[in-house]
């Protein structure tokens, strides 16, 4: 069983990832809490090793279960998921709002990959294990996510006048 201190030490990282993933501080902490509780329930499945990646794997399961439960977004391995924009993240500053909104406009499966690689700085192999997909799928999702995010962020800069964000 992982020690409580080791678990506590992982919470800031889990919160950062969850904040970016959900776009909402309260939902993010709910996700972290559910992850910790599930992890402690399932600690017998834990093999001494990389605690952080094990927690991220657990969070992935909790996250997709929540998505399914909320019926907000079907989590499938499909490139052609309809875009489901959600309310923009509440946050300080235009930069985060901009980026947060663009992230939430990404399909959840692409957002996860983009954040595990780009924010959590995990290797492609680690990312593949956490999400439970082949490395090749990681690369194709990453590619789609980056392309789409680039388009969304560029779009934000050429919004119609009444929506334009003044820098």
């Amino acid at each position: 069983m992982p020690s409580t201190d080791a678990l506590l030490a992982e919470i800031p990282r889990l919160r950062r990832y969850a904040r970016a993933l959900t776009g909402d501080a309260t939902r993010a902490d709910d996700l972290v809490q559910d992850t910790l509780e599930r992890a402690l329930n399932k600690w017998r499945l834990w093999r001494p090793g990389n605690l952080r990646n094990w927690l991220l794997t657990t969070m992935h399961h909790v996250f997709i279960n929540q998505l399914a439960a909320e019926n907000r977004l079907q989590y499938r391995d499909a490139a052609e998921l309809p875009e489901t924009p959600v309310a923009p993240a509440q946050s300080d500053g235009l930069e985060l709002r901009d980026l947060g909104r663009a992230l939430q406009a990404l399909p959840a499966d692409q957002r996860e990959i983009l954040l595990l690689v780009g924010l959590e700085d995990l290797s492609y192999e680690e990312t593949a294990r956490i999400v439970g997909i082949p490395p090749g799928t990681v690369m194709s999702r990453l590619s789609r996510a980056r392309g789409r995010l680039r388009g969304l962020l560029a779009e934000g800069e050429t919004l119609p006048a009444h929506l334009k964000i003044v820098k």
Partner: protein
Amino acid sequence: MKPAPISEDDLHAWADGRLEAARRAEVEAWLAEHPQEAAALAAWRQQNARLHAAFDPVLAEAVPARLRAAATPGRWRPLRAAAALGWLALGAVLGATWNAPGWNAPGGARHADSHAQPADALIELPRRAAVAHAVYTPEQRHPVEVGADNEQHLVAWLSKRLGTPLRVPDLGPLGYHLMGGRLLAAEAGPGAQFMYDNATGQRLTLYVSAAGSGNGAAASFRFAEEEGISVFYWAENGFAYALSARQPRAALLPVADAVYRQLAP
């Protein structure tokens, strides 16, 4: 030697800083001749930088207490199990105990016994307090209805509902701090539950309800234990009090003693 063709995977690995030096040089030489791809890669790198700039401040935030509690094992799992079974299971177990011959008419329903002994309210008390403890203490998000940050309102509200000025014991010297309280349905009307926790997340509850008639005289401390929940209970001035915790009797006794002394008129 001609370098291997540059793949898209190489480009991502370049953007993520995951290429070895030799391959990196080859990719960079290729990029010099492919400005469109180079622009895309610059954008990808910038995405990573913006993600860190936007979300790294979360790392410096104080961790909320509810998440610290969720990372502390051994406390909530057994309690959650009890709460999941809730009134039904625990009630059945305790009910069986209290329905045993000698406590109530054998085989008779609890409420069929209209000639209840004067001490009936106190017989019910530890069972009710233990069940309320098992039901509410595992709650992570809604353990109390009104939090300790609204203590004045909490005390005024519950005092009004119970029809007596309530006092909330200060257990700070024993390491326990008030989390808040809630209104409960007690044996014959409203009851109140105050919840405390300590630094290690251990929770205890103080249950207060009208003791019913015939209990005006102060009753001495009694102790009951069911399903691992220790309950100290007593009656005073027409009110019944029960202090419950998932702790051994000896550990709870000094707390119960402090509560009793503080609540004594």
